C-alpha cells in the first residue's frame, strides 16, 4: 500500500507500507491495504508506519489523512521524524497551542466550545511529549 507523508514545505516520506497508524481526531486508527476510503482530520500525535518489519515514527500536528483506494496520504501542517524531534520543537509546538488557548479564552464570550477544543489540543501535545520522552512546560489553563 502506498504511503505518503507531506508537509507544506516538503514531502517527508513516500514508501510502500504494510500498515499505518494514524492519530485521527476521533481516535487512533490503523490502516492496512483495502481500507475503506476515509478522510479524517489529525490530532497532534505520533504516526507509525510499518515497512517490512521496521517501524518509522513521525510526530504530526494539524492537517488530515486521506485514505483512498491506492493508499494513504497524510497531509500534516507540521511533521517531524520522531528521532529528529528536539526539545525546541516540542516547546515551539506547546507555545503555539498555549497561545491559541489564551486567545480562545479571551474571545470566548460565554461560548466554551473553542476553549475546550484548544484545551484538548494542549492535552494532546502534552500526551505526545510524554509518549516520545520529551517534557513539556505545564499548561496554564
Amino acid at each position, binding site marked *: 500500500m502506498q504511503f*505518503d507523508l*507531506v*508537509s*507544506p*514545505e*516538503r*514531502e517527508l516520506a513516500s514508501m510502500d507500507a504494510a500498515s499505518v497508524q494514524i492519530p*485521527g*481526531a*476521533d481516535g487512533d*486508527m490503523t490502516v492496512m491495504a483495502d481500507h*475503506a*476510503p*476515509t*478522510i*479524517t*482530520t489529525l490530532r497532534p500525535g505520533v504516526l507509525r508506519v510499518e515497512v517490512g518489519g521496521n517501524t518509522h515514527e513521525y510526530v504530526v500536528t*494539524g*492537517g*488530515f489523512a*486521506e485514505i*483512498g*483506494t491506492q493508499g494513504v*496520504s497524510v*497531509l500534516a*501542517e*507540521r511533521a517531524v521524524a520522531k528521532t529528529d524531534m528536539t526539545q525546541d520543537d516540542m516547546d515551539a509546538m506547546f507555545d503555539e497551542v498555549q497561545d491559541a488557548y489564551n486567545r480562545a479564552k479571551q474571545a470566548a464570550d460565554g461560548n466554551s466550545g473553542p476553549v475546550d477544543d484548544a484545551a484538548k489540543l494542549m492535552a494532546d501535545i502534552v500526551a505526545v511529549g510524554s509518549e516520545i520522552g520529551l517534557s513539556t512546560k505545564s499548561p496554564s489553563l
Partner: protein
Amino acid sequence: MPNLKDLKNRIESVKSTRKITKAMQMVAAAKLRRAQEAAEASRPYAERFTAVMAGLASAAAGSDSAPKLLSGTGSDQTHLLVVMTSERGLCGGFNTNIAKLARTKAQELQAAGKTVKILTVGKKGRDQLKRDFGDAFVGHVDMSEVKRMSYADAQGVAKDVLGRFDALEFDVATIFFSRFQNVVTQIPTAQQIIPFAIPEDYEAGETLYDYEPDEEAILADLLPRAVATAIFSALLENGASEQGARMSAMDNATRNAGDMIDQLTIQYNRSRQAVITNELIEIISGAEAL
C-alpha cells in the same frame, strides 16, 4: 568634448557598476535555484490539499450551514486586497507589475462602489500603492527579516487575514502575487482566497469517502488551513519570480554596461588620437616656421 581624464574615470565607474550587476545576477541565480526547489517541494501538499478541499467544498456549497469561509458573508461590499511584493528593488518590473494589477483591480472595485482595503506584504508594494490608496491601507507585513520563507510565515499572514474576517472587516479577500513560469516570464496573478473558490477544472472523483469526524467538522478545520496553504504557495511563487526577475534585470544591466564601456573606450581612443595629432601639428608647424 570631455577631456581624457573624465572619460577614463567614466569608464572605470561603468566597469565597477558592471562588476556589481554581474555579482547580483549570480547571487540571484543561486537564490533562484533554491527558491524554485522550495516552490516545487511545496507543490504536492498544495495540490492534494486543494483536491480534497474542492471535493468537500463542492459537496457542502449551497447548504445553509456551510461555513462563512466557504459560502461568504452574503455580501461583497468590502474587498481586502492582499498585495505580495518583494522587500528589495532592482528586480525589473516585478513589483511594478504586481502593483499595477492590484491598482487596476482596486480602481475597478471603487468605480463599482465597493469598499477597498489593502494589506501589503513586502515593502515595495506598499511604497508603490501608498500614493493612490494610502487611506485604504489596513496593515503591512514585514518580511525583511525572513531569510527562507517557511510555512510559519504564511501562517502569520493567514492569521492576520482570518482575524480580520472574523471581525467582519471584509467580505472577499484576494491575493496578488507573481506566478513563476520561467526566468524571463512571471505572470502577475490575482487569486480569490476568501470565500474559498472551487478550482474551475475540478472534477468530482469516483471515490466515496467516509468522513471522520463529519464533513462539516473537517471542512471547518480545513478552511482556515486552506487560506494559509494558498498564501504559502503564493509567497513561494513570488520568491522564485522575484529572483528570476532580478536575474534577467541584472543580466540586461550587465550587458548594457558592457556596451557602454565599448562605446566609451572608442570615444576615449579617438580623443587620445586627436590630442596626439594636434600635438604633432603644433610641432611640425613650429619647425616649419623656423
